[in-house]
């Protein structure tokens, strides 16, 4: 069943996103350098876009992923479809903006941030696909794992 597959894909993507964002949040608060093959992680993580009113973007991302996971696990039916798609799309647009800043303003690449942007892009596609494909039919919920 297509929806079941998409639902599981969304779950896997969300858990991957949580792992990435949790790592970056830990690195931020521990004040250590992230493991980085692109050489730009520290530059990106300490840039003016790395926090919003003192709240690190990594933590905002982590909270966003947790909200997506919660919407997938705790909600049912249309509420789940709409909430997960809305959260993923916001994440996708925001991470797109941050990736743009990385490429054209900071001119440094943080592989972890790019990985998170890819995860959010895929999540946005999958959750939007589920929303458009379901057409109001019942969907996978908390009892599916």
């Amino acid at each position, binding site marked *: 069943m297509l929806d079941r597959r998409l639902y599981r894909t969304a779950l896997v993507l969300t858990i991957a996103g949580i792992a990435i964002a949790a790592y970056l949040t830990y690195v931020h608060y521990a004040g250590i350098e992230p493991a980085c093959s692109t050489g730009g992680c520290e530059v990106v993580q300490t840039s003016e876009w790395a926090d919003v*009113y003192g709240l690190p973007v990594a933590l905002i991302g982590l909270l966003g992923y947790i909200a997506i996971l919660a919407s997938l696990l705790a909600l049912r039916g249309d509420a789940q479809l709409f909430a997960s798609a809305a959260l993923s799309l916001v994440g996708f647009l925001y991470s797109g903006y941050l990736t743009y800043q990385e490429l054209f303003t900071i001119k440094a690449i943080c592989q972890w941030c790019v990985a998170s942007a890819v995860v959010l892009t895929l999540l946005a596609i999958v959750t939007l696909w589920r929303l458009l494909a379901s057409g109001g039919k019942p969907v996978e919920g908390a009892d599916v794992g």
Partner: protein
Amino acid sequence: MSTAYTPPNPNKRRNVMIAGLVAVVVVVAAVLILVSSGDNESESAAPAANAPLSGLKETKAMLDGIPQDGNALGKKNAPVTMIEYADYQCPFCRDYSLKTMPILINDYVRSGKLRMEFEPLTFIGPDSETAARAGVAAGQQNLEWNYTHLFFFNQGEERSGYVTNAFIDKLYAGAGVNATKANAYRKTPSAAVPIAEASANAQKYGVASTPSFVVGPTGGPYTKLEVEISNPDAFKAAFDALLK
């Protein structure tokens, strides 16, 4: 929401809901982006960050042509070294730096008789730590003295949270520091090492207030200098005694 499975006109209602969702998503994302890009303006509400940088000319005049090496100012082979223990937030450190120190640098460091080292202490609060790390990072580019002097010129109120990224970026720009490199360095564990060493050394010399000074022949041993910080002649007498 479970009633959505059997609506009277499911397709039409769904389309309206999806359109609503897209609108909400765009608005929320736009707000997030606006808040992000407006971050610096909001931070600059701190008093010192909004004001134009002062002391640019004075800093340049005081330091131009004098070699720097990390936290040290002056020739390596200068016969006498004085180490200053200071907290970036401390107003007395500012007074010493702006009034007494330029005279000492002009009369002793410039002529190669004295070498000065700056050791940051961070007892006043988190802003001191941020400022000190930024100073260590500037020292990686041998511009710690430019950064530190500009910092004291633009010092804000203690513990007011004025040492923001924007504030440091402005000082870096004024000091000629490569901000991208320095900002990356100042958050690494390496940037904390000289601060920990400064604290340990301060304890060793019995430093209980800032600014405090130890002085001696370059390489040591150093002894604590008990002088009135607003009196350059008291410092000069100590240097002259060591230079004899």
